[in-house]
């Protein structure tokens, strides 16, 4: 069969939740966004929900501790000066500030309530 497809799209997949989506750039300086600098190396795509072609969307990055590839969803990772996957956050929870600990505890509770 004639496959006239363009170079296969690169796909980002979160290793925790499985979310996957094509990405167009990996790094700290997304193209066409002059003034933007990311504070970590990220998987970036054009923001599909904005009519403006220059708007970007960060899909995820790698955990600074275990190098797991994770999405930026709050169930999978957390950024606090660096990216931490949820597994690593839970492992070192006591080193995170109280605000974050409280937030996470609250979230855990509400998700438990939703399940039961």
């Amino acid at each position, binding site marked *: 069969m004639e496959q006239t497809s363009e170079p296969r799209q690169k796909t980002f997949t979160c290793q925790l939740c499985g979310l996957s989506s094509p990405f167009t750039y990996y790094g700290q300086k997304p193209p066409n966004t002059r003034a933007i600098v990311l504070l970590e190396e990220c998987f970036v795509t054009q923001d599909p929900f904005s009519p403006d072609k220059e708007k970007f969307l960060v899909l995820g990055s790698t955990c600074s501790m275990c190098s797991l590839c994770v999405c930026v969803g709050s169930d999978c990772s957390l950024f*606090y000066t660096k990216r931490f996957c949820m597994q690593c956050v839970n492992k070192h929870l006591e080193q995170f500030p109280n605000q974050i600990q409280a937030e996470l505890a609250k979230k855990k509770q509400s998700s438990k309530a939703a399940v039961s």
Partner: protein
Amino acid sequence: MDSDRRRDSRSWDWDSPQCRAQLDEVFFRRHDYIQAGSTEHREFWAFFDRFQRFKTRKEMSGPGAKEDRKKTGSGKVDLGLPKEYDARYRINVSVCTLDVEERLGKSERRGSQRSSGPGSQEISDCRLALLHFLDFSQRQSFGKLAKLRREQKNLPIFQYRDRIVELVRQSPVVVVAGDTGCGKSTQVPQYLLAAGFNHIACTQPRRIACISLAKRVSFESLNQYGSKVGYQIRFETTRTPVTKLLFLTEGLLLRQIQQDRSLAQYQVLIVDEVHERHLHCDFLLGVLRSLLAENPDLRLILMSATINIKLFSDYFSRAPVLQVPGRLFPIQVIYQPIPPDEQPSRSEKLDPRPYLRILQGIDQRYPPEERGDLLMFLSGVAEISTIQEACQVLATHTRRWIVLPLHSTLSLAQQDKVFDISPPGVRKCIISTNIAETSVTIDGVRFVVDSGKVKEMSFDPKAKMQRLQEFWISRASSEQRKGRAGRTGPGVCYRLYAESDYDAFAPYPVPEIHRVALDSLILQMKSMSLGDPLSFVFIDPPPAASIQTAVTYLKEQGALDSRSELTSIGSLLAQLPVDVVIGKMLVLGSLFNLVDPVLTVAAALSVQSPFLRSAQHNPDCTTARQPLHSNHGDPFTLLNTFNAWVEVKGERGGGSRKWCRRRGLEEQRLYEMVNLRRQFKELLRSHGLLEPQSSAPSSGDRGQRRLRLTERKKLHQMKRDHEQQESSRRKVLRLEEGEEEFSSGSDTEGAGRGKKDNEAGQNVDIQEVKFKLRHNVSELQEAASVSQDMSSRQQSLLKLLLCRGLYPQLALPDDHNSTRKDSEQVFHTRNKQGVVIHPTSVFASDPEVLQVPEGDNGEMGPERRDSSRHQLLAFVTLLETNKPYLSNCVRVPALQALLLVANSVDSNADCTRLVVDSWLELELRVPEEALKVLSTALALRGEWERLLLAQLGQSTMGAEQGVSHKVLEKLSEGLVRFLLYTEITYSLRRLTAFQTQNLYIGPRPQEPAPEGNPLFPGVEAKPDPIKGGLRVTSFFTYNCLADSKDLYSECLRTFWSCPNCDLYMPLTPLERMQHEASCRPAGEQQQSEEEPEGAKAAFSSSMSSLTRVYHCDVCDEDLTLTSTEILKHKRQHMYSTK
């Protein structure tokens, strides 16, 4: 310096636009990520206000708890996190704006010289807000993406994703079967895209589905602002060269196949909703089945509900089937057969009691806080309004229901209401036809009431009539209706029939191909060279009789010749996506100078009527409509309406909405007309039937052009804005919604007015915007004014064109109509007696114009009414509902129209008795007049045919010049004169069955040989093998009627002098017609020689060569003579021997 700062700071006002503008220069410059003036910029400042308020609140609640972090235990890794918490550490973005640039010394601006403006505190406040805003926008977009992926994953079809792709790779045809809600229509195309398939077409039975699917799938495939996913329907397309997935209608794909059998542009074809068994879909499957053999690389996917899957699989040599379970909540079925005393009898209205009981039962059993609407399925519009009326009484009383009708003849605004939300404690009661079974999906329905009935169109080939009849539904439809209750939660379905009835239902609905006229289908098959339609392998072949009827009809229409091959007009008609009759009008119109009105009429007759039925009983509407009416016929009324609307559009633009409302017009239909009209024009142009558009730039100088360009830009922006808002706009219904709608009987003026006008002010009239983008109003206005100023001559010519297009759809007024009431006027068609005019027709309110004027009645008594004013009706549709109704009628002068358009005209020896199509008999009193009118008609028709063929030949052969203007002018002049000034008295009546049996003398062995005696030169006049007499032209047989005399009987000879030449001799009628046909005034003869070569070449039957070889037995010589000369020559021998 320091003091300056402080003073500035004190005077800093965050709410002042000037202060904000100063910050804009720091953060939102032209090359920054967010620019001043953009949507994001507006959103930022809104966010800023919220952010500041949040910060103040936090500061007031005092400092947070002291950091009390445990020491890192020994042996544990230190993450190196900052000691002090700051929300800023949670943001992974930094922005390099003017302040940073200045700090880094990059900027050219001398920051230190800024004497006023924001101080460092303001800048850092704004900067912090910006970072949080960017983080917030990221979270928002990512949230959308995550939600989308979650929803996709939750669809039942998701787990079959890889399997589907694998099957498509392996086998040329795959059947995917899944019930409503399994996600097949949106997901399967995406799976293929993701798997690397590139040119995918997905057909839909409905245009609206093409648009909504393209929208949804482009959103889901994260390409909502690109054109990777597009749609193509009759009037619009969003397809671009980068489009990889295209949603299109079945009809459109068929047209594409017609143009390119290889379908090289597609890699995969998906045919969705095949179980609906629409005519086009069944045909498409048949065509694709034969195409697959020729294109082994093509992949075909059939998608269906879980109905009759084996049928589809077997049709494609047992294609693999993938069955996906649907996602329906449990639905309780309650059988509530209607008790005998509440059963409607045939003539009566529906008894509403069984329906009301259900509403009351719901009120009793379910607390109003538990949401859930009700959807009722009834068979037709009349039934809906009966039940609606009764339910509304209940609703007004209990204030717990909003009653809304839903059917396709409602205005779009009214249809749209069913999607709005009811206020708390109130349920919607939607009373619908089967439109809500598949075409329209309404969320939030918890209760379904199924009457078990449906009205369906069927075609009666014997009466040549469509029939709208009520039937029991099939089990498949019944299940489909039930399923509508379980889309958003568990539901209840009340069936107003017994379970034993259900068991007796047919398993599936009758496929459309078994119910409808197949004319267009057969025509298309012919043009696709698919061979004999009778041997084509349909998935479920239509009855042979139905195909035969269509072939006969197409022959009558002149689209097929006697060997069932396409004629040149037929092959053109096959290209036009319209009914054969409409197509014929277009082609005929292109010949004469009547293109503009014909385009409008053809478009108007192809869409639903813009006249809202509900407004008919509104006296204000009726009065306002009056000036639009034409007593020549409904197409003329439509023409007037369209022209007047265009006029209003040109003068007042958006004001047309109000203009329409006042007249009870559905403006949407007029928009459809104008679009269709444009499409017709392009079609004619692309087939060489219209001169190409003048390439001169639209009028006006550069300034004007620029103005128009800016306007277009603005319009485009408005369209985009509208499209963006559209999705998020569901209104809450008011309790009075149903009442109002009902009491006023229409959605025109009245109580709802203030609200409506408000609405109009708030949102743009998107149709008006699209209209302006698509059409050049002044050009349209010009066209409109051309057809508005039509003279009575042009009007009668237009009528003739319409009549020829519509032929053989003609109806004869009954003899006794003058003694009947207006509402009881009766008409007859050739195949169906006793039809009536639809109440919407102009002739229903004004039938006198169809009657032969009093006093015009000859001395022959009532059984034979002689007049020169007999009229016939040409009609577009004959549809039987409770009565057989004619709609969209035009009146035409009977004798003239018949002679000019009928397929079969038979005469007696002196042509005083004519029989048309073996059903109408015309008796002319004066033989002299009869001969004259007949020979004029023959000459005009011959010329008309010749020019039409030349025009068509020119379009196919691409000859340089077409038919010359002068010749055309002369023909139309002749036709008009014939139509308007033929003053000849005759009687007109239908033949009885007995008369039809003994109509013709039949062939006679002793018939004098034709001895080369053609009426037209070049056309052989042969004895007709069935009727007897002489077949003079394809449509005229002379002297074949049973009362006919001997063809060459000397007693028929009368002395006659030709007005054109010096001939004066005793001639039989035939000889005389023959002479008239060939003898032209001296001045004209040259003209035919001027005719371009192309026209001549295209004209197959060499009618233009006037001479032929004649062998004279007396002289024993071959002579090259015109037929008149032959006649003279023979006569010379005749007299010399005497």
